[in-house]
């Protein structure tokens, strides 16, 4: 349970620690990698040369994200009534679905919970427990996709040395989560929703463009010119809410120490690289490890890893298969 608490703390903002002890198996692998340095380098080279550049999971994810949002849009436009509402709350063929963070804001601000709100929230809670918590972020949230595209622009500018990435403390997001919760309780307004690009974009897609899109654009510019993926990394309380759900989710990215060459490509593409600190040489305390709850299960690392050390996995199911 130590690692569970550790992962939770890392999600809330703490730097990950070097492990004090290793499992015998992990110890062995670490040692072998040090002993056969020449072999290790040769194997690394070999894998590099045979690496397949692929975007399998990214393409699947984009397809799902676009499909989900399109289903919202078409349900209204064509009146097919499959998925009515917006991302904050909706009905899927009649069943209530309510975004956990929006539900939290409403519950704290209004201080009254009706049955439908509870049903919708519980349904979505169990759905994302099954699917991985922050899976919501990378597979559903429309801002994530747009921010991903603008991130590519940011990285290009960084490459040309026109801009630099300014990091914030990751704990800032936890502070935001607490502040927005307190503000909802104290003011009695759903303060966060005013600025939430997730809600704004979802509504704009479904009900037509709004002035609020200007705010979303400002955020994107901030991310392009000042700080990489700043909103998702350091601000968005939705991410933390779903991250908490992800702590108990069986679906996660699995890391296999023996297949890793510690080159760090995965951490370069990751939205939340601190979850991949275990891939740093000497950091993995076990031979097979689950990536922490802050992981959005986007699969960029799975696509990027040249040696297949990172894969999708389902706790319990892996052993069965």
């Amino acid at each position: 349970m130590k690692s569970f608490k550790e992962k939770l703390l890392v999600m809330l903002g703490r730097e990950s620690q070097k492990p004090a002890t290793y499992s015998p198996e992990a110890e062995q692998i670490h040692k072998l990698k040090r002993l056969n340095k020449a072999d290790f380098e040769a194997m690394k080279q070999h894998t590099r040369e045979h690496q397949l550049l692929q975007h399998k999971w990214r393409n699947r994810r984009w397809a799902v994200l676009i499909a989900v949002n399109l289903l919202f849009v078409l349900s209204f436009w064509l009146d097919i009534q499959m998925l009515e509402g917006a991302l904050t709350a909706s009905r899927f063929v009649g069943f209530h679905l309510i975004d956990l963070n929006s539900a939290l804001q409403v519950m704290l601000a209004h201080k009254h919970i009706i049955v439908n709100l509870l049903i919708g929230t519980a349904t979505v809670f169990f759905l994302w427990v099954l699917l991985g918590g922050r899976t919501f972020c990378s597979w559903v949230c429309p801002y994530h996709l747009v921010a991903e595209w603008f991130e590519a622009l940011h990285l290009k500018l960084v490459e040309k040395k026109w801009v630099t990435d300014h990091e914030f403390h990751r704990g800032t997001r936890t502070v935001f989560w607490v502040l927005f919760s307190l503000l909802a309780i104290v003011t009695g307004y759903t303060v966060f929703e005013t600025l939430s690009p997730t809600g704004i974009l979802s509504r704009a897609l479904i009900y037509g463009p709004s002035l609020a899109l200007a705010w979303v654009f400002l955020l994107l510019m901030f991310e392009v010119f000042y700080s990489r993926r700043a909103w998702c990394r350091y601000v968005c309380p939705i991410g933390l809410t779903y991250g908490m759900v992800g702590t108990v989710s069986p679906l996660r990215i699995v890391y296999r120490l023996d297949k890793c060459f510690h080159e760090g490509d995965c951490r370069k593409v990751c939205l939340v690289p601190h979850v991949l600190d275990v891939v740093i040489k000497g950091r993995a305390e076990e031979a097979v490890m689950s990536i922490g709850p802050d992981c959005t299960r986007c699969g960029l690392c799975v696509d990027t890893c040249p040696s297949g050390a990172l894969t999708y996995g389902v706790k319990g199911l892996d052993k069965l298969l």
Partner: protein
Amino acid sequence: MSDNNPESDAPAGKATKPAGSAKQRTARRRFIRSSLLTGGIVGLALLGYLPVARASRTRLRPPGALDEKDFLASCIKCGQCVQVCPVQAIKLGDLTDGYGIGVPHIDAREQACDFSCDAGQCILACPTGALTYDKPGFLAVRRGAHLARLPILKAKEKDPEPTLNLKERMGLARLAQPQICLAAQGQGFKGQARGAGFKGTMRYMDVDRWKPIPVADHPYERELCDLCVTECPIKDAIRLKFVDNGDGVKRAVPEVLEQCVGCGVCEMICPVEAGGMAAIVVDERKTWEA
């Protein structure tokens, strides 16, 4: 963006030489940057209170809405009410509404709620109880907001259950400009109530009970204009009161009655306007004073 502070990255001024190791300085800069970001974003979010406080944009809310403050708190900004409305009367607030972003409202002059859904579909659709048939006990009902009896929907008058399950009014109609009211001048009305270009729709029982049609497709011909009275979807909510000025001209003024729910159909259908305002308008959230 207000929290964008590139200065925090530059080395501190000449006078104060930063103390500590490079690592500590980086950490300090990051802390300052993070504080600015927190202050900036929270500050911006709090600006959302301004439009609410100034009440510069009081809005007519859909039927069954809780009182304004509770409504803004409980609405989850999903727009399911928008989706079920058969006349598309419901619109969502924008960033300029502050905390009212994504919250539904009705612009009665453009498209009023004519209850052509028969039951308050928006109330049924609402997942959080922001629109509700039954207000929870701990929320008080403002005096004069409560309807003396359930309103009878004219369209359903012959049905076994003719009432609309609406316990509080959305607002109250008011003859704001009697000087332009056609009836008050003893004038009739002939033609399209709002002209050919008007996009608003309404349910006409004699045309189709289940399908609202454009108001522009339903011209009127009246000897004495009484559109606000005849088109009102609620029974006993408004009537014509005849007035005698002693000049032999038949005149009348619309008189709003206690059963008025404030749906805004009278405001939408009124064929005259001056200063961008119809002769009869709905005052949102207004209560009945006996």
